[in-house]
């Protein structure tokens, strides 16, 4: 809590990855790539939402970091792009472009989407 207050004084605009009100969260892939996305975007995934805002039993709740030991980086990259796409175009009246998926990645992406509930 105090960490959050300090941040407000020195750095009035930009949040980081610390604390329960962090703007960003870190997603780690099986090959150790780190993907930093906005917390709001990551909450698109039901699984991540539960991990991050559960009753505090998950360590992820504190460090705002989630590690996916079965999801490789090329798939997690597409997942992150999907989060941005979903948040941008939900309830949007503008024309929504298609989300292109390379067939090679499609199967793994499907398994990740199933796990992530999004």
């Amino acid at each position, binding site marked *: 809590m105090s960490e959050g207050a300090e941040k407000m004084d020195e*750095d009035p*605009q*930009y*949040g*980081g*990855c610390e604390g329960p009100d962090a*703007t*960003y969260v870190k997603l780690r*892939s*099986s*090959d*150790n*790539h*780190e*993907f*930093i*996305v*906005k917390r709001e*975007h990551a909450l698109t995934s039901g699984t991540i939402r539960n991990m991050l805002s559960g009753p505090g039993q998950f360590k992820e709740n504190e460090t705002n970091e989630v590690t996916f030991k079965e999801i*490789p*980086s*090329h*798939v997690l*990259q597409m997942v*992150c*792009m*999907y*989060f*941005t*796409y979903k*948040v*941008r*175009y939900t309830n949007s009246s503008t024309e929504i*472009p298609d*989300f*292109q998926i*390379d*067939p*090679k*990645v499609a199967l*793994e992406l499907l398994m990740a989407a199933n796990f992530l509930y999004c």
Partner: protein
Amino acid sequence: MDIYMMIRRQKTTIFTDAKENTSVMELKRILEGILKVSPENQKLFKDETEMEDTKTLQDCGLTSSTAQAHKPATLVLCFRQEDGEFEAPEVVPYSTPPELPDVMRPQQETAPAEQIAS
């Protein structure tokens, strides 16, 4: 208009968005909030061209058509090392997807199988 980017450095990828008229300096401040590195110690590159602090993202070629939510533009980030020099831009590539099994290959002899899939 909002533009969407992936900022990459070695094994880290940050997904963020900004307005087209945001300055490069402003973007570095956002990165400061996430990575805790001051803007003087950051260098951003777009396609091997260094991005100057005073320019806007639009001036560097990032527009709402080149940097979309589901197809973000890629920028490379470098930090200043302890010896005062900047590190060389380096990005660890993502994993590669496995080869497609024969039945999923696009239109060859197995046309009927393709139709069931779609």
